[in-house]
């Protein structure tokens, strides 16, 4: 996902161009403030998947990415905002 957008140091600038062509597959590629439908949670860690479920983060629900700062993604689900790391953002398929 990352490498399709070229050099990571210039990701911010190049991403824009990238997004037009690539359809995001997980939250790391999501546009900010756009509503996405969650397709599924892809992880071996079933406990984390179950926990995300209790927050209302599971297939069929809507999610927004509000901002991304380094490895942290601020996401919005069901009226609440969370900070998640890149690994978890990658596990949430959209």
């Amino acid at each position, binding site marked *: 996902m990352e490498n399709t957008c070229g050099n990571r140091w210039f990701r911010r600038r190049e991403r824009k161009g990238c997004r037009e062509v690539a359809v995001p597959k997980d939250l790391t590629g999501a546009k900010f403030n756009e509503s996405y439908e969650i397709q599924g949670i892809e*992880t071996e860690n079933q406990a984390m998947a179950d926990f995300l479920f209790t*927050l*209302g983060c599971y297939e069929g629900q809507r999610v927004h990415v509000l901002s991304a700062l380094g490895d*942290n993604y*601020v996401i919005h689900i069901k009226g609440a905002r969370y*900070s998640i790391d890149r*690994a*978890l953002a990658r596990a949430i398929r959209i």
Partner: protein
Amino acid sequence: MQIALAGNPNSGKTTLFNGITGKIEHVGNWPGVTVARKEGRVKSHLCPTRETIQVVDLPGAYSMSPYTSEESITRDFVKEEAPDVIINIVDATSLSRSLFFTSQLLEIGIPTVVALNKRDLKHKKEMTVDTGLLSDRLGCPVVEVAAISGEGFADLVKTAHEVLGRGQKAPFEGPDPATASEEAVKAGDKARFDFVQQLVAEVETRKTESQKQTRQDALDRVVAHKILGIPVFALILYGVFSLSQSTIGPPIADYLVGWIDAFYGYVEGLMGTGIHPLLSALLLDGIIGGVGAIVGFLPLIMVLFFLLALLEDSGYMARVAVVMDPYLKKVGLSGRSIIPMVISTGCAIPGVMATRTIRDERQRRTTALLTPFMPCGAKLPVIALFAGVFFADAAWVGTSMYFLAIGVVILGALVIRKITGDTSKSNYFIMELPEYRLPSLKRAYVAMMSQGRAFVAKAMTIILISNALVHVMQTFTWRFQVVGEGMTDASILAGLAGPISWIMIPLGFGIWQLAAAAVTGFIAKENVVGTLAVVFGITNFIDTEELVLISGSESVAGIMGLTSMAALAYLVFNLFTPPCFAAIGAMNAEFESRAWLLGAVGFQLGMGYTLAYLIYQVGTLVTTGSFGAGVVGGLAGIGLFVGTIYYLIRKREREDLEVLEGVA
């Protein structure tokens, strides 16, 4: 009648609990402040009848299926202990998540009242909730409250009293998790979320979408920035510590010490010459002197607690966890590990308990082992005393101890990961971000007063008794004769502490008085200062004449007979050896493992000894050109510590290898 408070994390349960009971339990603006159940009684003027109402405050939970250990407390309590009424606190701004848990609570059959905490509704005003309709649909009363200001509490308690004894019908019934298949439960929970979604669509109207970026996000861009966040955090910590220990704290302490001195003089005059000199010495030097030496530092501690309370109230703590996560992951911890550590700068006991919000067992135990390294409020007098006596620039020494502590935590985390191996498979991080709010001065004041009172109570009990005992043991020989002039080494205290002081020669402070103070420090860290005051006969560590922290710095340093390097080593030794017994007890409760407890105390002892040794020996080499006394002997002790760690690491590596070979 017993009421249980349940709801999502950070929905305001403890704020409500404090409001209706008048208690002062720890509150903070981040999820996971409450990690154990707390009990209290509803204030009598809120009770509709004369009957007393018990309230139980429970840790926050997102659902009845717990993710971390403190969440299971909530489920177990409402299911097994069957309270008479449940008050379910719901954050009005995140109804579509909160009502999921509500609908699960309603299934239990215990009469439930929903307390709709409208804390953010007022200033937002762009959303409304039809509480009448919500109440209809849920089949339980809904009462609007504002936990922070206390609005609606009387109504809430009255409603809870009214539903007592009534049954509770569930608006949504899922399959029973005990009997149904896993898929059926999952499908049931999805249907439950659909039910909630529909319900929210009916009762809630929002003018603007809350998922738009706000000013809060702009603030987060700086405060929670991956790189910028670190200096911001360091600056905030520096501000907290230097304000409490050199700017605001000492001048107030100075004033207080004047009062203590006056009291000492008053009691002295009151007793006159009619009282036996031994008794008056015990009272004046043992009790008033020892306790006074510690109480003198009270203002420093109160300022620290005030500032920590402001910090916790603002919502910043969750951001610190976010900023620190990538760095802490590199040493085998998680971002959540930082919260126990910040709490530990107040007191290590709640700090150790706060590790319950960390799910991974190895990370949780490692954090519980390392978090007491953070200098707590009780260690603050020790820091302030030594920084003031031996170093002119007190602020520099004090603050550097906190940053040294962070360094020790990082080093410790790396070593422990080597010993235990990194067992966490997928190390995800997720943290709910609470909204920032202007911290309330009133709440910080209440927290400060409560902590200050606890500090004085401790000084008047445990520390007073310790000081009196130390004074008695110092006054008498083993044959219970009064120690003669110039024969102080014959006292009981010298006899007990003497052998220990031998071990401390390589650290630069092989004097029995200092050894005795270090040992009494395990009862309570304030005792280090109290014992020093008693054994050296110093009654005043803080000058009343000038705004200098210590009276006659040079004379105090002279009495102890320490070089500044030895003093620094002694300070570090007291900060980084195991914490007080109460904190060790808290560690024991969280570890649930004898091996971890023994390992933790051994590790802390070894760490304190090694650091003190390095500071004294290297410092002495640099300042005088040669090593201090006992340089070789000390190496033996450190060799034992490092050797044990090396052995444990090798043992784990061998085991890993065997597992690999077994697979092959």
